[in-house]
Every structure is written in C-alpha cells, then in structure tokens.
C-alpha cells in the first residue's frame, strides 16, 4: 500500500493491571508524511506514544522504526536514531536556561563522556561552540532568542511548548511524535507551531505523527488520520474520509467530546 513505512506498528497491546490501554493496534506511517492520531480521551493515544518512544514496553506486538525492531528499547536509544517525542505537558528543565535546554539536546556530544573535559578539552570546546551556534540559530527560528539566558522555569506554557519543540529540532530528527502540541496554547502561538511543523516536513522531510484534539488544525495539516478508541485503531484514511466515517463520529459522540466534523461546528 505504501512504500516502505518509516514506522510500523503491528498487533501492539498494553495493559495496566485490569485496564487495557492499547488493544492489538496496527498501523503504518509513511516517511515524510504528517499523520494525525486522534480519538476521544482515554483512547490510548499517549500510551501509544509511550510505547513507540520506548517509555513503555508492549506486551504483545512489534514496532519497527525504519526497518529496525524497536519495541522495548529504551527512550534514549530511539532518540539517538532519530525518533523523538514531545510531552503533553512540556517537560523543560526549569533549573537550566533556555539556551542550556537547547544545547542539552545536541547530538554527538563527546563532552558527555566521563572525563572528556579532562583529556579532550579542545575537541570538546569546538563541539560545544558548534552546538551553541546551532542552538542560537534554532532559537531564532522559534523566536525565543531574547529569552536565551532566562531560566526555563520562568517561561509561560506556550513558550515552554516552543522550547520543547526547539529542543526536538536540535536532535535533527527523522521522525517526531508530537503529543497535543497545541493544547492550552494561545491561537497566535498555535499557528506558529503549525507553521513550524509544516516547514519541518517541507524542508527536511521529517515524518510527523501528531496527537491533537484541535480538529480543524489536525485535519488541515495531516496527509492521513488514524483514529483510536478504547485502545483499538478503529479507522484510518484521508481526513475527508475520516470526517464522514460513522464509527468515528459515534466514538466521539459517545463521549460527548467534539466530533471531527468539518468547519460548520467550529467554535471561536
């Protein structure tokens, strides 16, 4: 159906005690695509993200990233091959400055080896400079430059989202999992984020899988939509198809959440 998928989920299940959070879920994500993952609350979307990004291990099923089996691998291993994620509530390091937050995410840091400061000072200093330059550039892109030396703890919620996004960019990822990037963010900032997401795919060909409740936004930018409900994948397809899909509408109406119908019901 699609050329070699960059992410492939097959028969993945996860339960917590008595609760089945993810139930035999399977789907593929095409490289360079923007895919929306939607579904009512409690559908298992964030759990799915946790499974993909290595924070959870599936009980059944396999996950492949770019042909490499990755289920059960620790998060840092996935991040180092280019699969990174954001968190629903942005997890910035509040006790470090914005610039330090960015530099933390730099790839290939020889300085993180034990003792590197002692026996490789020049090599280390050079790489630090490179990373610092890259960080400053990206801060420009996400327009947080003037806050570079402020502690991340002083940032507003929306700014933290941007910072987390910028941190992701530092890792030069091949695929990004975005967990509700627009939740609780002012409209102007949300638009900015959307622009960044689209630009990322356009310029670098980064694959994006995004969980969102903002139906307008996710329908507008996604090439494909995957719908989950109560742990299972109940539909996948083009945005237009999903909006007409009866099962999907039922799933949403059943929980009194906003159904993914087109612009007619958009609220201010």
């Amino acid at each position, binding site marked *: 159906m699609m050329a070699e998928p960059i992410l492939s989920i097959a028969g993945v299940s996860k339960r917590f005690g008595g609760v089945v959070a993810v139930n035999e879920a399977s789907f593929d994500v095409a490289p360079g695509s923007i895919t929306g993952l939607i579904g009512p609350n409690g559908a298992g979307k964030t759990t799915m993200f946790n499974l993909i990004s290595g924070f959870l291990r599936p009980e059944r099923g396999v996950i492949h990233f770019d042909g490499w089996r990755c289920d059960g691998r620790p998060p840092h291993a996935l991040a180092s091959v280019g699969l*990174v*994620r954001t968190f629903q509530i942005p*997890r910035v390091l509040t006790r470090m400055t914005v610039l330090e937050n960015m530099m933390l995410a730099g*790839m290939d840091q020889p300085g993180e080896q034990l*003792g*590197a*400061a002692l026996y490789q000072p020049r090599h280390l200093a050079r790489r630090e400079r490179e990373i610092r330059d890259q960080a400053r550039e990206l801060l420009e892109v996400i327009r947080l430059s003037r806050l570079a030396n402020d502690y991340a703890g002083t940032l507003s919620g929306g700014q933290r989202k941007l910072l987390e996004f910028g941190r992701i960019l530092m890792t030069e990822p091949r695929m990004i999992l975005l967990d509700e990037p627009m939740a609780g963010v002012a409209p102007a900032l949300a638009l900015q984020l959307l622009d960044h997401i689209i630009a990322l795919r356009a310029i670098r060909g980064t694959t994006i899988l995004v969980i969102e409740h903002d139906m307008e936004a996710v329908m507008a930018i996604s090439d494909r939509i995957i719908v989950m409900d109560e742990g299972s994948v109940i539909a996948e397809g083009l945005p237009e198809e999903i909006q007409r899909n009866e099962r999907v509408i039922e799933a949403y109406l059943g929980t009194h959440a906003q159904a993914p119908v087109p612009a007619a019901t958009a609220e201010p």
Partner: protein
Amino acid sequence: MEIFNLPFWIFVAVIAGIYTIFALGLYLQYALAGLPNFGHVAFAALAAYTMAILIIHLNVPMPVAAIAGLLVAVLFSLVLGIPSLRLRADYLAIATVAGGEIVRYLALNMQGLTGGPIGSIGMLGPSQLAQYNQSWDALLRPIVAALERNPVLAPAASRDFAMLLIVWVTALILLVVFWLMVRSPWGRMMRAIREDEDAAAAVGKNVFRAKLQVLILGALLGGLAGLFLAWQIGIITPDDYQPTFTFYAYLILILGGTTRIWAIPVGALLFGLLYSGTRFLNFYPLSLFDSGDRAYLRLILVGLLLILLMAIRPQGLLGNRRELLLR
C-alpha cells in the same frame, strides 16, 4: 586549651580536608545527579575496613590493600545501587541508610574479622594490638623530615601537617577535576537527569549509565575519604561510621550551597570550625555544661543547623536559589 593552639587547628584542617573529599562524593550523587544517598558512610567504612583487614590478617602490602578497599566500596555501590537506582527518592534514602547500617552492624558483630566493637586493634584477638598503619607512617616520615628542614614551615612540621598537605592537595586536585567535569556537557546532562529523567531520556541521554557513573565516582571518593581518615587516626572502630557521618556531609553541602562545587571546601571548613570551635566557647551559659555534655551540644547544633538551613536558606550560604535542588 587555649584557642591559638596550632597543632589543634592543623588537626581540624586535616579532618576538614577529609570531609571535603567525602562530601564531594556525596555532591556528585546527590547535588549533581539527584540521588539521595543516606548511607554514603558505608563507602568509607568498607574501604577502611577492607584495607585494615587485608593488612592485618593477610599481610597484603598497603597500596594493594588500599586499592582493594576502594574496589570493595565500588562493588557495594553497584550491588546496592543498581536495583535502587530506579526507586523514588524516599525509598532510595531508606535503602541506602539501611545499607550503611548493615555495614556498620556487620563490622560491629563479626568479631573475628573486624575486631568487633573495639575495632581494628582487636582484629588479631585480645592478646595482640593489631596495627595497619605502619607503612603509611613510614611514608609520612620523609615528608615530615623535609618539612623540618624548611625554615618557613619548620615550626608547624608534624605528622598532622604532612597529612594536611597530602589530604588538601588531593582534595584540591579532585575539586578541580570535578569542577571541570561539572561545567562540561557531562555536568549538564547530569543536571538534566536530576531534574527530569524522562525529559533527558527523550533527548537521547542514557540515564542508567549516567547514574551508574556517579554512583561509582561517589563510592570512590567516599572510600578515599575513609582511607584518609583511617590513616589519620590510625585506628578504626564501627563507631566511626555511624549514619551521622553521612549527615555531616549533607550539612556541609547545605552549608556551602548545593549548587556550587567550590562551596564544598568552604562548607567543610565552616563545619570543622563550628564543630571544634565549640570547645572554646567557655562563657556562660555554655560553661555550665561539662565536656561530656559539650559533645551532645555539638550534635544538637548539627541538628539545629540542618533544620534551620532547610527552613531559612536551603540554597546554603553560597548557593544559587534558582538552581536549587532542595527547595
């Protein structure tokens, strides 16, 4: 004893230096990586006892015994630490304090091996006075002799002064080394892990390996401090390794400030001053207490300081409030 008694203050300085190394080990584990090790004293105890046991029971040469001591401390840190690394902070605190206590308890009760309550001098049984310090003393003698020949330093020349030089040179080298490392990306990675491991893992940091690194480093430094203390005093007993020892190190970290590595020697010297200086405060109402009670007063002071610093100035005297670990 009058206050300007040089040999006394040299002794205090030696102990402060040893505490600097000890607290540095704790700094790496707790202040840098966020692992609240309440049983740090175990590393000192294991290194010292291993060295003494090997020298006294098996006639192992001192350098080998010392290294073996450090290795045993590291081994213990791994055995206890690895399973505990993923635990919540208070569980880790409990597990580590239990670990420290069990080491002390074994030292107290395995009489044949450790000499029991009377410590190292009893290791060869009641009829002999076991010693482990001869080689170290032999090492110090040429240094003392060199000091005596030096016209400037001659008045202070003593075994304790030689110890002071060795301990503080070591401490300063270690402080520089770790200062460089803390400022480097390695230190940044640790600070990130301390605050939010998942965020650090999400950007590619191997959290487990990093924690293992500080655990081992902490064990090495704690063990080294234990060795120095053993060499300084010449005798070791289980009483030297009470949990209070670990909490002195916490107090030192908090006194100086948990956010700066150079605050450690300041904290250690302050602590030494406070602790030993109380014996000179002979005015009313302190003069009402006899010398035995003064010891308890000192511990009361330690307890009060722990509480007050936590309450009023948790970042310590030199710390940076925004990077505060202990809120």
